[in-house]
């Protein structure tokens, strides 16, 4: 009623200007209509730790669909392992996750040991565990610095590279290789520890704990960091499990599962007093937080192992030419990036018949099409960084 009156009250001229304004509005709306846009991230991008390409279909600032493209670094290790003897395979698999490479060798060696029914002597198991945890520190240190870098803080990355060097030096002095130790052997390890290594390790572990404190002050408490990570990229536990997420990614969703504690094989983590850290939130911040605690826990594990390292031989009795009896076995360990396992089929020859490499990052990153749906463009980078993958671990 009122509206009719006001319409009638409009003069002819007013009516015309009203129509013109409506038409202009409509035109603007047409021009600004947000069509889908495709954003191509990578293959070369600092957030991808290698060459991962992500094709994101956007609606404005929001992601509609994501298609990760990989294979730029596929090296065919499963095929190559079929023509190499067991000791030669460790040289290959060192290069799967290149920032924590000793940890790659361990599950393969353990699988071969299970098939051969040999067990490494206690001292070898102890040293193996120490180096395993050390490669975890070398790996996650990089993540802790990198995560800051992805939200725009450069300093943590410098701190990371500064302190990671100490750990790499220790690994080098024990194994002879900074990045690719190739140190684990079927039935034990290659060499005993050098003189003075234990004292030096204690000193470095103290330093690494200080580094964790620094990161805590510098990054974790930072308001911008929290705004960029809290509540972003939430993974519910059941979804994470059905995608096969592992490591800190699943523990960040509140799942209390760690192969080191629940399914120990060939390593002695349970001889020490340690804790599995979990966080209930499941967001980017939770994953960061869990990794930070785990690094600190690793330094404690190493300290305790150094206290009661047994003496004795470092190699079990194994034949000089290794032929693994026919059979099938699968052993998994809790690697820095998550659960890594090798399914080895042997036919009693010098070379494995089939090696299936179950790498952590492959499963961890396969959740991205689900996880990145509906997030905003800047969050793609922080979520990818918080999932923490190494391309070699995806492409193998």
């Amino acid at each position: 009623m009122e509206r009719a009156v006001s319409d009638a009250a409009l003069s002819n001229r007013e009516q015309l200007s009203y129509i013109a304004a409506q038409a202009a509005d409509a035109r603007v709306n047409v021009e600004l209509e947000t069509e889908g846009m495709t954003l191509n991230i990578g293959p070369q991008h600092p957030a991808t730790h290698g060459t991962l390409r992500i094709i994101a279909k956007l609606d404005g600032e929001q992601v509609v669909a994501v298609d990760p493209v990989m294979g730029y670094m596929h090296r065919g290790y499963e095929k190559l392992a079929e023509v190499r003897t067991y000791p030669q395979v460790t040289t290959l698999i060192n290069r799967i996750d290149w920032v924590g490479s000793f940890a790659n060798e361990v599950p393969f060696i353990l699988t071969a040991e299970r098939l051969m029914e040999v067990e490494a002597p206690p001292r070898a198991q102890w040293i193996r565990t120490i180096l395993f945890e050390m490669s975890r520190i070398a790996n996650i240190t990089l993540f802790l610095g990198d995560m800051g870098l992805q939200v725009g803080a450069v300093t943590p990355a410098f701190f990371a590279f500064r302190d990671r060097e100490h750990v790499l030096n220790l690994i080098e002095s024990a194994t002879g290789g900074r990045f690719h130790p190739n140190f684990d052997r079927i039935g034990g390890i290659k060499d005993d520890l050098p003189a003075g290594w234990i004292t030096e390790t204690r000193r470095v572990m103290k330093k690494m704990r200080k580094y964790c404190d620094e990161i805590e002050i510098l990054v974790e408490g930072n308001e911008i960091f929290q705004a960029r990570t809290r509540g972003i990229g939430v993974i519910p536990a059941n979804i994470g499990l059905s995608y096969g997420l592992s490591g800190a990614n699943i523990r960040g969703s509140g799942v209390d599962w760690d192969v080191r504690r629940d399914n120990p094989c060939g390593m002695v983590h349970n001889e020490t007093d340690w804790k599995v850290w979990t966080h209930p939130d499941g967001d980017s911040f939770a994953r960061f937080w869990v990794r930070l605690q785990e690094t600190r826990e690793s330094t404690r594990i190493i300290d305790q192992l150094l206290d009661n390292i047994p003496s004795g031989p470092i190699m079990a009795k194994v034949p000089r030419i290794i032929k693994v009896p026919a059979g099938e076995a699968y052993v998994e360990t809790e690697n820095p990036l998550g659960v890594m396992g090798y399914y080895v089929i042997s036919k009693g020859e010098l070379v494995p018949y089939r090696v299936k490499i179950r790498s952590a990052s492959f499963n961890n990153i396969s959740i991205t099409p689900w996880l990145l749906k509906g997030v905003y463009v800047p969050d793609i980078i922080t979520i990818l960084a918080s999932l923490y993958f190494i391309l070699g671990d995806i492409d193998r």
Partner: protein
Amino acid sequence: MPDTDLARNELVARFAAHLGDGLLESHVEPDVDVWLRVSRESWREAAEFAKNGLGFAYFSFLSGIDWMPSPFGREMDSQIDIALGNDEASKIDQTIVQGIAGGETRFQAFARVNDIVNGLGITLKVDLPDDDLSVDSWVPVYPGANWHEREAWEMYGFSFNDHPGLRALYLPSDFEGHPLRKDYPLLARRMKPWPGIVDVEQMPGEDDNEDGASSE
């Protein structure tokens, strides 16, 4: 821990009760591991039962096996070996022998799922006949199987019914052949044959003729 063993045996019994004839063979290695081979028709049902009936919520991996030994051996026979008849490849026995939990076909798909509460894992296998390398996809049950099935598709040529998008994962989309099959040659060694035990390759700076050094 003897109770773990009981747990694994009970697992097999519950699978057998649920799948009936679908469970073809099983193998329990006490305190270590358990293998089950199911028929092609009950492949997805086995996954559903493992996830919803037995609490195997964690998907670990899915891949394939080719049981026909490679006709090329290790591709490391030198030209000298082949000339002398000492090459490994000519002595290859290509009979198909399946592994744990048996099988009837050259190709098998296998997958592993975990029960993280009780710390148990099972390996499931399925036979795929040569004339029809297809099986039901696991993606509706475990979404994480998506990429693993794409990998098995390109590496072995398996196809998965109801998969949301079977396309190349690692390889270029126009790649021919299935690299992880045993009869796919390892081209790196084809292009540059393995020199054998003694590296006979000339080092740079080395003289072509042997008496070059003695003439100095």
